[in-house]
């Protein structure tokens, strides 16, 4: 029996999937490309389920979940780092993969940003997190999170100009 005296009870994990699952999958697709998005999603959700009963704050489930997803995305990047691929190869495969296809090249350009900016921009626009939540996920301050999003956007824009 779970006793969380005084704390807001955790929702059934099924509802966490209903509520955040699709966004986690979209986030994964943006971070690691559609081809590996499903792996990233499955690993994130399994890790989350494993640790779920230890969650203290039912209101912070979203940022907690994206912290896990962000770590999994990094793991997947590292696992594939030994076989560097041109950015084009990370683009969606037309058929087999169900993750949202990110058709325009903008996400390929996001993936080429410096790590912190890339992460902040993805959390902001794919996971719809607030700056405060981004700060929680990235273990940084809210102003730093805001700055990373801003710098990322600035760089994307200047690259767009250069094209």
């Amino acid at each position, binding site marked *: *029996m*779970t006793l969380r005296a005084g704390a807001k*009870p*955790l*929702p*059934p*994990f*099924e*509802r966490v*999937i209903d509520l955040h*699952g*699709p966004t986690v*999958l*979209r986030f994964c697709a943006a971070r690691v490309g559609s081809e590996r998005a*499903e792996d990233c*999603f*499955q690993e994130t*959700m*399994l890790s989350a*389920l*494993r640790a*779920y*009963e230890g969650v203290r704050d039912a209101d912070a489930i979203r940022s907690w979940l994206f912290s896990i997803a962000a770590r999994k995305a990094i793991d997947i990047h590292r696992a594939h780092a030994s076989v560097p691929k041109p950015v084009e190869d990370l683009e969606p495969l037309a058929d087999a993969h*169900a993750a*949202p*296809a*990110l*058709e*325009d090249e*903008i996400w390929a350009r*996001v993936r080429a940003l410096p790590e912190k900016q890339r992460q902040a*921009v993805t959390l*902001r*626009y*794919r996971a719809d997190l607030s700056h405060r939540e981004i700060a929680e996920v990235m273990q940084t301050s809210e102003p730093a999170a805001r700055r990373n999003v801003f710098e990322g*956007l600035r760089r*994307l*824009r200047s690259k*767009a*100009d250069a094209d």
Partner: protein
Amino acid sequence: MNSNNQTTDLDQLERSLRAGDELDPEAWTRIRDDLAGRADAAGLVDVAFERHDSPLGTMLIGATGEGLVRVGLPVEGEDAVLAELAMRVSARVLFASRASVADARRQLDQYFAGRRRRFELELDWRLTKGFRRSVLLATARIPYGTTASYREVATEAGNPKAVRAAGSALAHNPLPILVPCHRVLRSGGELGSYLGGPEAKARLLELEGSMRV
């Protein structure tokens, strides 16, 4: 680039970053099923549940590793039943296929078709304790097609005076139908209340041929 255009540029950039294809519902279902299967195989699902269509409406059937722990009747509402399971058993509640639940669904179908009089299923009694559990254990022994009074059930559970407490135990039966609380009536033969609603109670008694018209 003219600096006057920069705000527009930024808006456009933000819009394209937010844009994305909608998830294909079929693909999403497959991904979820895959997740549920993996989670259950890894022992991460404490309560697995499925929905089950019955003549009473869509029921919910939940099981732990020990057996069936909860049958939710349509009037109870899925959200309420899942939230209760999350609070009282474990928050690791997931929609997942399991043999124990499949078996219960099959037996319930047979019961509603009039082809089954007894359920042969493992039950997990953890959601009920003490006198309430004794009342439900006594209720589980009432044969198909017969009824008992609240007083009889209270007596059988070891306290003939606790008629009201017996009623309360039945009203909180976590395993309705499997533990046939619908077979307990008022002493005068009046239907009495039912956690699934009076119509459901009447319907079950009618099915069992014990409805006094």
